[in-house]
Structures are given as structure tokens and as C-alpha cells.
């Protein structure tokens, strides 16, 4: 693979036909919610695009995001993309190790300074830099160093995007997200635990095509993928609207595929493309598999009051509070009532007789 | 010469009268007690009632005046009663009865006028303490007897 090769050349070298290429472009356009008229533009742009250099940093993470990307079915769009990018550093995937690996990173940074894309998965510990280091370099230091020369940063997975599970209460490592640390670079958050692979490739395709990052929502997520809630696109939504719910995982409702809201589904408050793109080559997604959405692409999903508790339910013991309140109310009410009664009795007892001589205004 | 001596005869005689004659005799009953009413309107009302030629419109006008006088003279609930004023109220009621069409007064206008006139006399007697209501009855018998003979 030559570094000067364009994307078009690289694809043709791998035996991808013009038709296959256009198909990929059309799929990319559709993923990015662009009109069909944009397909030739995308094709032209990708044809000429230089294979970008990508540096992938993994911090406090579980490798689930990488697993998700690499467990893609072949031939896939994402596979193609990964074949055509220049993944210059990725500790799980690269062959080099130790000082050779770090040298590769430094080289890539130097050669593509200001142009490379930084992909991050995992959160960054801040309580103590020693909690997570690579080649003796703390995560914070490495992130800040690499981010400095990046054209854009893509935070893959909820940990990089929002702090994720390491950030979950009580957050012993002081984990933070990329955007908590990097303030001067365009950052695209691709949350999910793990995120949908096609979303990552879509973001990269957008960057390659337009040289910019896609339109983002308030949480830095690409609108094209995170513009609608799971709930709004869920095939079980009609059951919700009709008020038909599964009450347990094995009841009649569950068997009939009714809405999982009562089982704690976070679909209504979760924005992601699971319900439309689905997983494993469009096979299924959690709700289709009979499990409520955990809301993994939303900040602090781990601390949302329980995966199996509906969002409208209390997170504290209300019955106990109610019992105490009624008890205390009964005691206080009777006490105040008796005080009222005593006052009333006293008033009646101290009644002063009104005679006919007392009717006219006194003084 | 007719002589009425009790209420049974008195009423029977009244009932036998036609509407105009009932009105005329009633007017005489009222006239007999009119001194008890301080309201000047009543004198005029009696004048109309006593006129055998009085037109319907004139009579209706007089009835209205009699009614108005009645409402002006009655004692309102809870206010201090004055029996001499109350006598005037009954005179006005008698005048009203005298002018009320027979259809609206099944017991007879003249009979009602006679009763209210007696009440006026009773009211007066409450003030003075001497019971003269019996005399009023006798006078009414005399008035009727004279009327029937005239």
C-alpha cells in the first residue's frame, strides 16, 4: 500500500468494480441522510481522496468498540473503509509492539501533522494519571499530545464520548470524556456501548468526502445517526401507543412482542440508529431480541436509576416516605385538631350573653 | 222594607246582586269607614266605585289606585306595627275588593269589602281599646237594607 495512493486507486487495486464503488457511495449517502443527488459528488470526492492517516488511541476501555468494528461481516462497507484508511496506530490491531509501536505513532503524527484523524475509545482517568498508562505515558498526556496535531477527533463509544462505565458513580478513577479535555479541535462523539460500526465508517466517509465533520446534535453526535430516538423508530412502538406492555420477560405480552417500556426500556430517551440500521448485518437489535434498550448512547446511562426500571418510576422508596408522612400527619393532625377543638370549646365556654341591649353599636 | 239581621242573610242578599250593584253597595261599606284611612286616594276611588255609570277604563284605573294604596299602607314584616295605620290598610283593601271584578273574587267583592271594612274598624278598636266592631256589622246590615230598598 502506497501512502500516495488515492482511495479510488486503492479500491480498484483490491478488485472493487466501479459499480460496487457507486453502491458504496450510495450507501454512504443514505447513511448520512444525504439526498441521492449527492452520490456522484461523494463518488468524485472519494475517488480523489487521499487515504487519510488515522491514529486510534485506546484508554480506559474494554475493547468492545474495536470488537464491534472488526466483527463486521465481509464484504462490508466498514471493511472497505478500513482497508482504505491508513490505520497507523491501534494497539489491538497493529502488528508492532513496544517502542516500535510508539515510534509508528510518532512517525504518523509527524508525517501527517494537522491532517490525521484521531480516534479515541475509552475514558481518561484524571484522579491519578498512573491509573492508565501506555509505554509509560499517561492517557491524558498522550491524548493531549496526539490531539494537538489532529484535524478532527472522533470519540468512539460512550466511554470516550461521555466517560461511560469508568465514569459511572462513584467514578474511582476520575474518568472524563475526550471533550472534557480537548477543547480546541472538532470532536465527533459516536457513543454507544458499543457504537454501531456503520456509524463510525459513516463519519469517516463524511470526513473524507467533505473534509469536514458532519452536523452534530447538542451532545456532539452526528444528527444523521442520532437524530431520532429508538422509541420513535421502534417496531414495537404501536404497542406502546396502544398501551400493550410486557410485564415480565416471559409473560404473554413478552411472547407477543409487546412494548418493553415497563421492563425499563430507555428507548424513549435514547437517541441512536439501532432500530433502523440494527446490528450484525441488519439482523436484529436488543429490543427485537426481547430486551429493553439500556440507553447506552446517552450520557451516564449506567447511573440512570436501573436498567429494568421505567424512567417514570421513582428511584427512592416512596411508600416508606408516604407511610411516615401519613403517620406523622395523623399525629400532627389530631394534635392540631384537638387544639382547634379546645380553642373552640373555650370560645363557647367563655360565651358572653348578647342581650337586646347589646345589639346597637357600642362605644 | 227589607231587614237584614245576620250574616247569613247579609251574604245571601249580597250574592244575589249583579256586579254593578255589588260594587255600589261595597262602595257604601267602604265609605262608612273611610275616615280611618289617611290616604287621600281612597276618597276618589270610592267616588268612582259609587258611580253606576262608571266606564270600564275608569274602574280599572280606580282599582289600580286602590291596590297601590293597599301596598303603601300595609305593615312590612318585622317593622313596628301601627294599628291606626293598619285600619287605613284594611280600608284600602276594602276599596280594592269593591272594584275587583267578580270573576277574580269568587267569594264576592261586596262580601270581601264588608269584611275588610269590619277589619278596619277592629284595627281602630285595637288602638282605642273599645270594641266597636260589632257596631260596624250592624251598620253594614243597615246600609245593605237601605240599598236594597232604594
Amino acid at each position, binding site marked *: 500500500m502506497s501512502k500516495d495512493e488515492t482511495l479510488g486507486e486503492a479500491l480498484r487495486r483490491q478488485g472493487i468494480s466501479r459499480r460496487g464503488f457507486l453502491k458504496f457511495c450510495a450507501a454512504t449517502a443514505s447513511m448520512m441522510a444525504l439526498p441521492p443527488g449527492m452520490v456522484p459528488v461523494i463518488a468524485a470526492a472519494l475517488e480523489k481522496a487521499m487515504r487519510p492517516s488515522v491514529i486510534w488511541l485506546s484508554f480506559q476501555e474494554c475493547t468492545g468498540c474495536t470488537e464491534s468494528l472488526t466483527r463486521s461481516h465481509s464484504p462490508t462497507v466498514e471493511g472497505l473503509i478500513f482497508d482504505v484508511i491508513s490505520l497507523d496506530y491501534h494497539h489491538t490491531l497493529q502488528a508492532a509492539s513496544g517502542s516500535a509501536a510508539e515510534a509508528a505513532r510518532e512517525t504518523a503524527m509527524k508525517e501527517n501533522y494537522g491532517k490525521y484523524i484521531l480516534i479515541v475509545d475509552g475514558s481518561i482517568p484524571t484522579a491519578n494519571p498512573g491509573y492508565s498508562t501506555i509505554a509509560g505515558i499517561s492517557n491524558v498526556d498522550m491524548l493531549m499530545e496526539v490531539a494537538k496535531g489532529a484535524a478532527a477527533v472522533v470519540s468512539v463509544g460512550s466511554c470516550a464520548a461521555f466517560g461511560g462505565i469508568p465514569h459511572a458513580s462513584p467514578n474511582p478513577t476520575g474518568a472524563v470524556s475526550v471533550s472534557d479535555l480537548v477543547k480546541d479541535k472538532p470532536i465527533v462523539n459516536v457513543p454507544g456501548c458499543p457504537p454501531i460500526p456503520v456509524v463510525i465508517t459513516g463519519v469517516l466517509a463524511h470526513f473524507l468526502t467533505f473534509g469536514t465533520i458532519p452536523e452534530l446534535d447538542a451532545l456532539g453526535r452526528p444528527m444523521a445517526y442520532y437524530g431520532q430516538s429508538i422509541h420513535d423508530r421502534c417496531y414495537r412502538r404501536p404497542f406502546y401507543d396502544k398501551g400493550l406492555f410486557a410485564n415480565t420477560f416471559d409473560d404473554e405480552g413478552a411472547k407477543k412482542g409487546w412494548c418493553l417500556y415497563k421492563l425499563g426500556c430507555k428507548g424513549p430517551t435514547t437517541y441512536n440508529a439501532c432500530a433502523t440500521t440494527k446490528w450484525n448485518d441488519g439482523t436484529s437489535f436488543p429490543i427485537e431480541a426481547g430486551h429493553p434498550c439500556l440507553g447506552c448512547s446517552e450520557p451516564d446511562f449506567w447511573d440512570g436509576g436501573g436498567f429494568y426500571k421505567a424512567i417514570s418510576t421513582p428511584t427512592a422508596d416512596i411508600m416508606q416516605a408516604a407511610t411516615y408522612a401519613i403517620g406523622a400527619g395523623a399525629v400532627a393532625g389530631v394534635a392540631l385538631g384537638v387544639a382547634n377543638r379546645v380553642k373552640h370549646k373555650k370560645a363557647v365556654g367563655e360565651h358572653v350573653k*348578647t342581650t337586646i*341591649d347589646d345589639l*346597637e353599636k357600642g362605644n | 222594607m227589607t231587614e237584614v239581621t*245576620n250574616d247569613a242573610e247579609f251574604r245571601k242578599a249580597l250574592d244575589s246582586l249583579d256586579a254593578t250593584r255589588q260594587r255600589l253597595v261595597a262602595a257604601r261599606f267602604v265609605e262608612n269607614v273611610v275616615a280611618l284611612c289617611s290616604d287621600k286616594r281612597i276618597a276618589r276611588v270610592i267616588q268612582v266605585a259609587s258611580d253606576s255609570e262608571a266606564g270600564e277604563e275608569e274602574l280599572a284605573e280606580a282599582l289600580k289606585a286602590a291596590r297601590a294604596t293597599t301596598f303603601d299602607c*300595609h305593615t312590612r314584616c318585622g317593622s*313596628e306595627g301601627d294599628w291606626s295605620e293598619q285600619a287605613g290598610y284594611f280600608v284600602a283593601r276594602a276599596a280594592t275588593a269593591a272594584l275587583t271584578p267578580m270573576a277574580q273574587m269568587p267569594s264576592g267583592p261586596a262580601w270581601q269589602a264588608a269584611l275588610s271594612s269590619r277589619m278596619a274598624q277592629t284595627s281602630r278598636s285595637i288602638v282605642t281599646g273599645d270594641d266597636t266592631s260589632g257596631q260596624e256589622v250592624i251598620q253594614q246590615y243597615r246600609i245593605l237594607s237601605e240599598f236594597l230598598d232604594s
Partner: protein
Amino acid sequence: MSNASLERGIHAFKEVIDAPVASFFSSCVRCGLCAHACLFYTETGDPKYTPIHKLEPLRRIWQQEYSFWGRFAKALGLSKPVTDDLLTEWETLVYDSCTMCGRCSMICPVGNDIAYMIRKIREGMAAAGHAPPGLIGATQRAVTIGSPMGVKLPALQAQIRHTEQETGLTIPVDVEGVEYLLLLSSMEIMNFPEFIAAIAKIFKHAGVSWTISSEAFEATNSGIQIGVSEIAAELVERIVAAAEKLKVKGVISPECGHAYMAIRWEGPNLIGRPFNFKVVHILELLDELREQGRLKTTSKETQRLTYHDPCQISRRGGVVKQPRNLLNMVAEDFVEMPETGTMNWCCGAGGGVSSNERADELRLKVFNRKKQQLDAIRPDAIVSACSNCRIHLEDGLEEYNMDMPVLSLTETIAEHLAGSDQTGSKQS
């Protein structure tokens, strides 16, 4: 020397507040519906006549004395006090523009019995020296003379003599051991003595033994109108004493609205013990006689008649069916007003308003409500069973140029008694 004072008024407010009052004030949502049940509002359009608003002084005392947060607010000095000026302002609202007809109590969506509370607020108003002069006079006469209109025994005796002459019947006075003691209102003695004659004829016809007491003939009770329970109790005690002395089985309340309320419903509560005799309204008794077949009538009135329900007798008293049964006996063409029975509109003069000259103009103005009701059915005559309603109806009809006699139901029945020669006279 009067002892009336703001302190005594406030003290009385504290005395009269009970669980229903506390509940009513807690429930009011200020929806304003009660205004539309009150003729003082509907005929003037002035929102100050909204029934619940007339209770503001009492509401403040409830809030400040009997609700925990109100007490708290009072301690912090956040609540509006009840002042003499406030009571001065409210005096006309409480006495001149409320007849305690209780129509608002029938429509309040949260169920507030506003008339119940007006009755109570008047206790405090009276104790604070804020009763209207007219009612004070009536009350003083009721206590000292025995009648709010100053009717003394000789006057009654003269009327009895007159009635005996007219009917040829004996009017029993102070007869022991009879069935019923008949009470009379001063209004009947003064303005409508024919009521006594009607009763005499009917009771003769139906074979009812009865008497009038020379010691307690007065049915009315200014005490419940002005709002002084001990005066009301004193007046009730006179009747109870007479009834017990004459050993009657029952006491008859005559054609008077508040008299029935006073003796039938408030009476035992005022004196603090149940009666050992029954209290019936004359219409109740007449209907009972009708049911027993003891009351028979012959001819019928051909005029188109309607019945005006006196508020204290129907809505507040529960005598609703009886007058209808009786009217159907003697009327060929009995027609109801659009809103009738327990939903009837007050004439505008009850609850002491008629004794209160200050309210004269207002009560005639609000009579327009009754006019509208009558205009809807255009009867030839109105029948009622309360002398006060009757006088005010006559006044109002005159004011509005309506030509329509107002009749007493009892008297109307008497005129149609079967087998009556109507003159009934034997003596000369």
C-alpha cells in the same frame, strides 16, 4: 348600655366555626358559580354580591384560628386582620343582600352550604354591633313585647273576636289537651287575619282539635334572623313552655318561612334539648289530613295558578311535595315556574331583609328575578305559604306593574272546603 364590640364579634366567630364551616372554607375554589345562584348578583351584576364573598370576615377567622398554616401566617403577621371597618363594610352584604334562601348552597360544586355559614356569620356581626337597625328594632320588640311588629295580646284578641263574628266559629284560646297549638306570625295577625278564619274552618271541617296560646302566639323569631342564638332560644322557650303547659301533641308553624326554620329545625338545637311535641308546618298538616281523607274540597280554581316556594319551607325546610298535592286538589290549571321546588328563586325579602328599611330599594330591584320567572308562565295568580313572601310579592308586582293577586295556600284550601256554606254564620 351596649356591650357590642369587635372583640365580642370575633369571639362569636370563633364560637360558630365547626367542622362543616372549616370544610367549606377549605373547599372553595372561587369558581364564582354561587353568584349565578343569587338573585342579588343576577339582578344587579355586582360581583360583591357573590355569596361566598359575603363570608370573608368569617373566612379570615377560620383561617387564622383553625388552620395550621393560617395560624403560622398570623404568627408571622402575614394575615389580614378582621377589623371593625371590615365588619362595617360587610354589614350590608351579610344582612341587606342575603335572604339566607340557600339557593347558592344547592349549586356550589364543592358542596359548600353557604346559607349555613351566613346564619353563623350573623352571630358575630350582631355581637359586634353590626346588625341593621331595622332588625335590631324587630328583635327588641320580639323580646320585650312578644312580637317583632309589636302585636300585643289585645290586638290578637280583637282579631279573634272579629274572626269569630265572621265565621261563626269559636277560636280556641288556651285550651289544654288539644292536638295542636297554632302559632301565628305577626304578619298574619296584622295583614292577613283571614288566615285565622281559614284555619278555623279547615280544622272544624277535618275535626282537628287545636288552640292558640295567649302566652306564646308568635311564631316568628327575629333571633335567627339577626343572628343571636340566645335571643332566638328565649323566643323558642316561650313556645315550648306554652306547648308543655297546654299539653299539646304538636305545634303548628303557620304560613311563615323563617318561623318554620326557627321552631322546627333550629328550635331544639337552640334550647339544647329535644321537644316532647311534634312540630309541623301547616302545609304538612293539611297534606296529612288530605292523605287521611279528612280534607275534602269541592270546586276548583279555574285561574291559572302557580306556587311560589318560600325558601325556608321548601329548600331549607323540606316541605316541597305537600303544597303541590294540595294545590292539585283545588286548582284546575296549576303550573310550575321554570325553576321551582328546592331550586325556586327567593322573592328577595326573606332572612330579615324585609325588616331592614335600608335594603328596600335593593329588594325591589332583585324582584326582577321573580318577574322573569312569572313572565315565563304568565299565571293569573300566585299562591304561596309565607306572609312575608306574600307582602313582598305584592310589593314587587306593583313595582313592576304586574297585575296578579297573591293568595295564601291555606286560605285557598279553606275557600274550597267541601260542605262549607262559606258564610258559616249563625250569629248576628
